[in-house]
């Protein structure tokens, strides 16, 4: 399984620089989270890796076998759930593969449903199943849980973490939720003004339990990097610097 390698990747939109010389190597099987404020260029970075956007300059080494889950589930409302999941797959064995994937995301009974009848969390699961059936090497997640309620979000984080462990994908997740990044990722990259301003390794493997005491400290550390002022009483102890 190949790694993803970005060398001096830059992107400008009408002379406005969005990404400015990104160097990043993501080893095969790593779960990396990219956090940053709105406009930091994190979504653009993901779209470049996905091949949906061309970098203005720099070199990208990626793979064809990648799957993307977006913030909106992006299901075709006029195709039933099973057809959405199997979209573009060869007909051979399609229904079995689709049924397996829907089972894996816990929606075995929804194959014949219309997408507009699903809840936000269910739609997002279908979108995950659509990624699963392609047996990708790389899974790209663009703020995949941003539109979900807090409880559904936790469930989905567990699901993604569990699926990642089972399938051994390389995962690149863009998020503005630092807690989510810390729960799931091996490494969290902070993007600021189109550049990587910080890289923090998270010990252990995701999905981590919210009970894990280290997480709060790491979260606080990342929030400080992002320039979020924290209340004085909550100053985190100086641990776990990478």
């Amino acid at each position, binding site marked *: 399984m190949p790694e993803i390698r970005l060398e001096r990747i830059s992107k400008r939109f009408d002379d406005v620089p969005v990404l400015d010389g990104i160097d990043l190597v993501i080893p095969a099987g790593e779960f990396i989270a990219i956090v940053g404020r709105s406009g930091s260029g994190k979504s653009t970075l993901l779209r470049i890796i996905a091949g949906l956007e061309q970098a203005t300059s720099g070199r990208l080494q990626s793979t064809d076998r990648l799957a993307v889950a977006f913030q909106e589930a992006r299901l075709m409302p006029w195709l039933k759930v099973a057809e959405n999941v199997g979209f573009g797959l060869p007909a051979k064995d399609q229904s079995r593969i689709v049924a397996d994937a829907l089972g894996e995301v816990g929606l075995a009974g929804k194959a014949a449903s*219309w997408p507009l009848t699903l809840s936000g969390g269910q739609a997002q699961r279908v979108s995950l199943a659509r990624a699963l059936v*392609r047996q990708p090497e790389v899974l790209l997640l663009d703020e995949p849980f941003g539109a979900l309620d807090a409880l559904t979000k936790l469930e989905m984080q567990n699901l993604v973490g569990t699926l990642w462990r089972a399938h051994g994908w390389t995962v690149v997740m863009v998020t503005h939720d630092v807690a989510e990044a810390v729960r799931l990722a091996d490494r969290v990259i902070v993007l600021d003004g189109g550049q990587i301003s910080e890289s923090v390794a998270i010990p252990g493997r995701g999905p981590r339990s919210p009970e894990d005491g280290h997480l709060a400290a790491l979260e606080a550390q990342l929030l400080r990097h992002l320039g979020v002022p924290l209340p004085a009483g909550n100053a985190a102890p100086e641990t776990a610097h990478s």
Partner: protein
Amino acid sequence: MTIETETLQPTRIANRPQRRAKRDLSRNVLLPWLSPIAILLVWWFVSAAGIVGPKVLPSPVLVVAAAWELTLNGRLPQALVASLGRVLAGTIIGVALGLAAGLLAGYYRAGQIVVDKPLQMLRAVPFNALVPLFIVAFGIGEWMKVSLIAVGVLVPIYLNTFAGVRNVDSKLVEVGLVYRAPRYLIAYKILFLGALPSILTGLRFSLAIAWIALVTSETVNANAGIGYILAQAQRFVRTDQVFLCIVIYAFLGILTDYLVRLLEGRLLAWRNTYDGR
């Protein structure tokens, strides 16, 4: 007493769907016909009371009698077959061409450049202005009539297909691109199916135009068809037959509209739309 209410409740719930089905039947099937029936009754009353003479407004009874007469001598069935055949042929050709042009212009910017302006110009031309041209090109036979209907049908189908395709969320097309779906799959499963609500609206407009084009073409030179009966009836001042033809046009128009609605119900079952309250 509590036991009694507990046994009552389930039957009441079980009855509800049936009652609702009955109410839906009267509301959805019968209610829309109330105003046409009222119009018929007013028509009947006006002619029966002699307010307007039978040469201007024949009573509904006379119109039914005319239908009976024309059915017995075989002219009406023959006319219906001829007219329906023309509309069917013209519609099939027009829909096929309009769909192809709309998908081409919708999918490819280059297709839009080639196809859009000429069709926008065609749209600006009232199709009956094309009759002299079509007579020169196709003669006065069936081809002229079918082509005129096809051109009338083509324009709304094209416009609505094009608009429908361009209205499909580009984020869905992006999904197709990310998963490296072949072009025909993006064209069919994303763009065509996504444009289908709009295309079916276009089809309803088209069919309305098809009937108008039929009348125009059949009054030019025909020896069969509803328009032929209409022209003959006008010549011999058979107002009852004129009314019959108008009523037949009205019913055929409603029938085709109903068929498209059936099609919409089947093809657009995925929609979660507001149905009025």
